[in-house]
C-alpha cells in the first residue's frame, strides 16, 4: 500500500492553507455559499439533540417542531441520569478506555521496540503472523474471542472488555515504524552509558516518541470509548455496561421519551466532545497521522 509521508508526527498539522482568491466583483468569497449550509448540516443533528434534551416531552413531539423552547428543562438530565445507572456507565467506559490505553502504550511499546531494534529468534515469523491478524476484521474472530473470554470467566465484566483489547497489532506497527525512524546512535550511546534495554526504552526511546504515543493513546481512547459491538456481546447487566451500550439500553426501554433520550445521548457525548474541543489539534493530527501511515 502506498505510504506517502505527507506529514510527520513531529510536525504539527496546521493546515497551511491556500490564499483565497475571490472573484473581483464578489463582496465575499463564494466558498461561504457552500460552507455555511454544510456547517449547518453538520452541526444541526447535535444542536437539535441538545434542544430536544431541554424540552418537555410534549414539546418534543409537536408539529411543527418547537425550534426554540420557551423554558429550559434541565431536570431532563437528572431524570435521565436517575433512570439508568449512568454513573456506572461512565465509570465503566472510563475504566475500559484508560486500561486499554495504558495496556496498549505499555505492551505495544515493549513489543514494537523488540521488533524494531532487537534481533531475536523467530522475530520475523512472529511479525508476519501479527501482520496477518491486522488484516482480519474483528467480526471474524468475535465468536472464538467470546468463547475465550467466557473460559476466562470474564463474561459480563469490565475485565472482559479490557483484556482482549490490551494490546493491538495496530499499535505495535505504529510504534515500530516510529522507533525505526529514531537515530540508532542514541540507543547505542545509552547502551555504552550503561543503560539496560529497559532503561533505553523508557528513558531514551519513549520520551522521544511522545507524539506517536499520544497518537496511539488518542486513537485507542476514541476506539474504546465508542466501542459498541464487543460490549453488546459480552455485557448483560447494566452495572457493567460502558456508556455506548448503556445508551442503547436506555433507548431500548419502550417508553422512549425523546427529550430524556436526547439528554442521555448528550450526556454520553460530553466527555469526548470536551476532550476534543480542548485537544482538537492532537485529535486531528492523530487521525491524519494514522490515516496516512496506514
Amino acid at each position, binding site marked *: 500500500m502506498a505510504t506517502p509521508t505527507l506529514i510527520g508526527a513531529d510536525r504539527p498539522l496546521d493546515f497551511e492553507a491556500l490564499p483565497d482568491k475571490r472573484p473581483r466583483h464578489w463582496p465575499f468569497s463564494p466558498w461561504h455559499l457552500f460552507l455555511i449550509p454544510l456547517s449547518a448540516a453538520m452541526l444541526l443533528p447535535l444542536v437539535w439533540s441538545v434542544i430536544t434534551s431541554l424540552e418537555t*416531552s*410534549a414539546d*418534543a*413531539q*409537536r*408539529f411543527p417542531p418547537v425550534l426554540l423552547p420557551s423554558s429550559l428543562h434541565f431536570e431532563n438530565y437528572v431524570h435521565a441520569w436517575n*433512570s*439508568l445507572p449512568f454513573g456506572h456507565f461512565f465509570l465503566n467506559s472510563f475504566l475500559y478506555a484508560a486500561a486499554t490505553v495504558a495496556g496498549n502504550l505499555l505492551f505495544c511499546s515493549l513489543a514494537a521496540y523488540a521488533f524494531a531494534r532487537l534481533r531475536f529468534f523467530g522475530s520475523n515469523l512472529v511479525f508476519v503472523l501479527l501482520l496477518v491478524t491486522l488484516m482480519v476484521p474483528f467480526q471474524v474472530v468475535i465468536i472464538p474471542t467470546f468463547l475465550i473470554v*467466557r473460559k476466562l*470467566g470474564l*463474561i*459480563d465484566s469490565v475485565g472482559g472488555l479490557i483484556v482482549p483489547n490490551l494490546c493491538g497489532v495496530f499499535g505495535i506497527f505504529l510504534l515500530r515504524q516510529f522507533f525505526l525512524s529514531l537515530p540508532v546512535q542514541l540507543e547505542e550511546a545509552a547502551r555504552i552509558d550503561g543503560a539496560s534495554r529497559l532503561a533505553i526504552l523508557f528513558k531514551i526511546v519513549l520520551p522521544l516518541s511522545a507524539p506517536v504515543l499520544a497518537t496511539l493513546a488518542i486513537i485507542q481512547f476514541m476506539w474504546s470509548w465508542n466501542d459498541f459491538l464487543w460490549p453488546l456481546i*459480552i455485557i*448483560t*447487566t*447494566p*452495572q457493567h455496561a460502558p456508556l455506548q451500550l448503556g445508551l442503547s*439500553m436506555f*433507548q*431500548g*426501554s*419502550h*417508553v*422512549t*421519551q*425523546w427529550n430524556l433520550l436526547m439528554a442521555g445521548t448528550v450526556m454520553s457525548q460530553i466527555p469526548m466532545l470536551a476532550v476534543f474541543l480542548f485537544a482538537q489539534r492532537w485529535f486531528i493530527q492523530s487521525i491524519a497521522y494514522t490515516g496516512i501511515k496506514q
Partner: protein
Amino acid sequence: MRRVAIGTVGLLALACAAVVLTAGCGSSGSGTAASPSAGSGRVVNITLWHGDTDYAAKADNVLVAQWNKANPDIHVTALYNGSNDYALQKTLTAIAGGKPPDITYLYGSWAANIVKSPKVVILNDMIAKDSSFNWNDFWPAERLAATVNGKIMGVPALVDNLAIVYNKKLFDRAGLSYPTAQWTWDDFRAAAKKLTIPAQKQFGWGYPADASEDTVWHWEAMLWDYNGDILTPDNKQAAFNSAQGDQALTMLGDMATVDHSIYIDTTNTKIQQTFNNGHIGMMVTGPWDLPSFPNVKFGVQVMPANHQTISGPDNWVILNNGAARVNASWTFIKWFTAAKQQMYYDLQTGALPTRQSQQQQPDFQTYLSKYPGTDLFVKNMGNAVKSRPTIPQYSKISTFLGQAIVSVMLGKSDAKTALDQAAQQTNALLAVPGS
C-alpha cells in the same frame, strides 16, 4: 410497564440452544449443590433480573429493600437488565456464559422455550409441599401459561389483556362519542378515520409495527374477534390464512394505507409517548401502559364486536445455581408474589392483580380508584378465552406473521398474499418433526 412481546426473529433457534444446554451444563450445574445451605448463618446472595423501569422499578426496589431488611440471611439484588424483549436471549446467553441469575423475568410465550433448559427449576414439588403458597389463588389463565406439559416452570409475575384505551379530549374535539361495548370493527375504523388530522400529526390509532410479537398479538386479538384462528386445533397447520384472517388483516392494512389513520411505529418505541402527548386517539393496549399517560384523560373500553382479547401472563423463572440459592430464591419469590406485596406493586404501577385474593386486600379499592379503567381490564380477563399455541415453534411462526402484517401495513403486499406466504412458511416449519 412490562410489554408482552417476543423478541426478534428465530427464537426457535434459541429453543434448540436451550435443548443442548442439557449437554453443556447438566453435569456441572444442576446436580452438584455444594454451596452452604440457607439457615447456616451465612448470607445467601441471589440475583433477580427484570426489565422494569420508572414506577415499576421503584416498586421493585422498595419491595426488595424491605425484604433485605427483614431477612439478613438472604440478600436479594434486583437488576434492571434492559428491555424484557431480550430477556430470553440474555438469559440463555448468561446460562451459556455460566453466570445465570437466580430469578429472571420471562414472557409467558417463552415458557415452552425455556423449560427445555436443565437450569430451569421445575416448581411442582415445591408448590405441592408448600401449603402457604396457594397455587390456585392465581387466575386460571396464568396457571395454564406457566405450565408446559404438566411442568410448572415459573411463578406468575404479571397478567394482562388488551382493550381500547382512548383519549377523551380528542374524541370530544372530533365530536365523537366514546367507544362502547357495542362497537363493531367498522365503528372502530370510522372513529379512527375521524380522529385523524394529518396537519396536526394526529392519528386515530397507534400500532407497533416492528414485526415482533408485539405486532403479532395485537392482530391475533383481532383475528380471534373475526372468528379466525392461528393454527388448526392439532397445531399442525396454519389457520390464519383463512377468510377471517384475510378480513382482519385487510382492515388493518386499509386503515394504514387507505385511511392513513394509523400511527405506524416501525421501531415500536414511540407509541406510548405519542399517545401521552395527545397525538393518538386510540390505542389497543393493556393496563401496564396506563401509568405512561399522565398527560391524557383517557377511557378504557373492551375490544369491538365479540370482545375477544388476548392475555399474556409473564413469569418469574428460577434458575439452578445450587440448592442453597434455589431454596433462597423460592423463599423470596414466594414472598415477592404474595398478595400483599403484589398489591403494593400493582398499586404503584397499575398492573392487574395476579392473585384473585388480592381483591380482599385493603388497598384494592384505593387501587381501583387510583387507576381508572383498571376495573375494566380486570373484568376483561373473562374475555381472554383463547391462548396462543404453547409450542416452541410459536416464536418462529410469530416472526412469519410479523413480517406479513408489517408488509401489509406498509403497503408492500396485500393481505391474502402476505398471509399465504406466512402460512406456507408455517406449514413447512410444522412439518419438520421435532423441531
